[in-house]
């Protein structure tokens, strides 16, 4: 059997593998959003812009300081995390007692400003960032050539997702975090510094976005608009998975990447829409998302 419903199997497998790669980007980005929403109740619209900042930091490090990909993988998320901490300290902190909408509007405004700044500095055409030497070339999977770099993206993303899940679900720090989410007053009464934890969580969440930015830099032009193209899809992923659900965001990210890949085989024109069709259906059947809890 060389085809499946008229689709040649090599083409199908190829698109599924690519869907998985994209799904990994979605998974880590939506993971960051889920962590932030779970802890801060903030719908972080600046996530896409900060993902772009991660990629731009990688480019700046290479261009001006000669620091390559591996340095960027550490320094860019730290830089973005620090920016996040400043944002949380100076602005977001004032909004926790208000409706979600205020946080959404503030972060949306920040996203526009950050993107505008980079657009003004570097234009939209973007900057080229080469694939690191260690990952040049491709694996021959029989049905397709998978660039080594894309394989690395899958491995790195899955490791980050697993690490984050482990930290939140299995460590003492994670237990504090979950407790602080559940009941901040009580947790604080036990002597845990909740505001500090909230600040670090936001830094960590956006740091993840910065990390994905570095991972994405060698695969596309590094430019001011790279985040705005992606963020809407990622939000759909979070909504489908269930706002604030870590497992939900990872599983849905990967799953939707695969579904998008399949759509590209069957009807490519709909590949940008399919995620939103699924979102609409999920919201009708399960308003709190596939993995979310009813409140």
């Amino acid at each position: 059997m060389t085809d499946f419903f008229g689709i040649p199997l090599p083409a199908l497998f190829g698109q599924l593998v690519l869907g998985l790669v994209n799904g990994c980007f979605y998974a880590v980005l939506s993971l960051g959003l889920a962590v932030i929403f779970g802890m801060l109740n903030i719908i972080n619209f600046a996530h896409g812009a900060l993902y772009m900042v991660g990629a731009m930091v990688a480019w700046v490090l290479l261009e001006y300081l000669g620091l390559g990909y591996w340095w960027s993988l550490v320094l860019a998320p730290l830089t973005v995390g620090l920016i996040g901490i400043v944002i949380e300290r100076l602005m977001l902190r004032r909004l926790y007692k208000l409706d979600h909408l205020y946080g959404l509007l503030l972060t949306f405004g920040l996203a526009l400003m950050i993107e505008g700044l980079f657009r003004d500095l570097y234009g939209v055409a973007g900057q080229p960032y080469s694939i690191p030497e260690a990952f040049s070339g491709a694996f021959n999977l029989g049905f397709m050539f998978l660039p080594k770099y894309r394989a690395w993206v899958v491995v790195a993303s899955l490791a980050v997702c697993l690490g984050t899940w482990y930290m939140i679900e299995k460590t003492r720090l994670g237990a504090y975090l979950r407790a602080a989410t559940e009941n901040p007053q009580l947790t604080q009464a036990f002597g845990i510094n909740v505001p500090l934890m909230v600040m670090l969580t936001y830094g960590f969440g956006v740091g993840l976005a910065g990390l994905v930015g570095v991972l994405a830099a060698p695969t596309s032009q590094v430019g001011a608009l790279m985040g705005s193209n992606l963020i809407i899809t990622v939000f759909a992923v979070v909504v489908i998975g269930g706002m604030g659900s870590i497992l939900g965001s990872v599983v849905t990210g990967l799953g939707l990447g695969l579904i998008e890949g399949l759509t590209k085989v069957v009807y490519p024109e709909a590949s940008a829409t399919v995620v939103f069709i699924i979102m609409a259906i999920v919201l009708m059947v399960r308003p709190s998302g596939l993995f979310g809890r009813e409140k």
Partner: protein
Amino acid sequence: MKLKCIALAASVTLATISAAAHAQVSDNAVKIGLLTDMSGAYSDITGQGTVEATKMAIEDFKAQFKPDFAIEIIAADHQNKGDIAANKAREWFDREKVDVITELVTTSTALAVMKVAKEKNKLALISGAASTRITNEDCNDVTVHWTYDTYAVANGTAKAVVQQGGKSWYFITADYAFGHSLEKDSSGVVQANGGKVLGAVRHPFPGSDFSSFLLKAQSSGAQVIGLANAGTDTMNSIKQAAEFGVTPKQSLAGLLMFISDIHALGLKATQNMYLTEGFYWDFNAETRAWSKRYFDRMKKMPTMIQAGMYSAVSHYLKAVKAINSDDTQKVMAQMKKTPVNDFFARNGKIRDDGRMVHDMYLMHVKKPEDSKYAWDYYTVKQTIPAAEAFQPLSASRCPLIRKTAS
């Protein structure tokens, strides 16, 4: 006494005539509304650079002709959306007394504004949009399409590539009016020159991941993958084609590329590509002189859209000055009557379908080692004369032409 009376009468008459002449430019001011992509995927190929080029055109015109009417410019971001563009156009024509709307990158916005301009009997001068629909099915008598179109770029690039031996083609196409038009025009040129089209895949606009579409193109086995998209879509397609090993086994043809794309991607990634442009800064002394002035303001070299906009606005202002009126039909008649001669076009002519025909240039992108100075990117392989560069009137689908012919 009699002499005095005659003198008085003559001066009163002269003053009346002169006042009448002034009154013909409404409000004694010409207002240019520049509607373009200021923040999105096309803001580098047009955007602020086009605003600057338009300002240069106005400054140069004022310095040379010292007009006795004021010239104003307003600019807005249409975000590449037809509805936003149409609403802005209405507002500008109705409330801001705008006489002409210019630029209009993205075919959907151009088509939307052309309709509004026709309804309000005002002018539209299009530089950035590409589809041949503007001067075919959707043509009207208040629009001029200035810089290039999908036929012109396809005709130059696709023909050259087929003649180099690239006979079988597969298209990766941006899924909106412009992409469809570019794919259709390119397919026509490929087939007319003895090549064949194996298929096409349409991607949502704007996209960021093209690997799936490249994989389809790869499995088609075509010698040439035609990129019927533009801006960051084209750039990411080229970058990812190298990553997935599509190139150099199969070759890519960027059907609409601008010098800013080459600058952003670098010569290493783009060397040896063919592309068709309506303008190159380093073409002759005149283009270099203008481009240097532009560079001093923008810190980058102009694209053909930006240079073309200067040319279009200058031509428009000269027409207003010549007839001392901003009446749409009269200005249009004057613009059509006068050949376009400036650093951008030599003996350019506006046809009845609204197409400004001028020479186009087939470019070959230099190897990095052959580039001697900043922005030294192209070798001009061929000048395609105006008569061959654009779709001939005999193939026109514009109702205005059919009416003229019959």
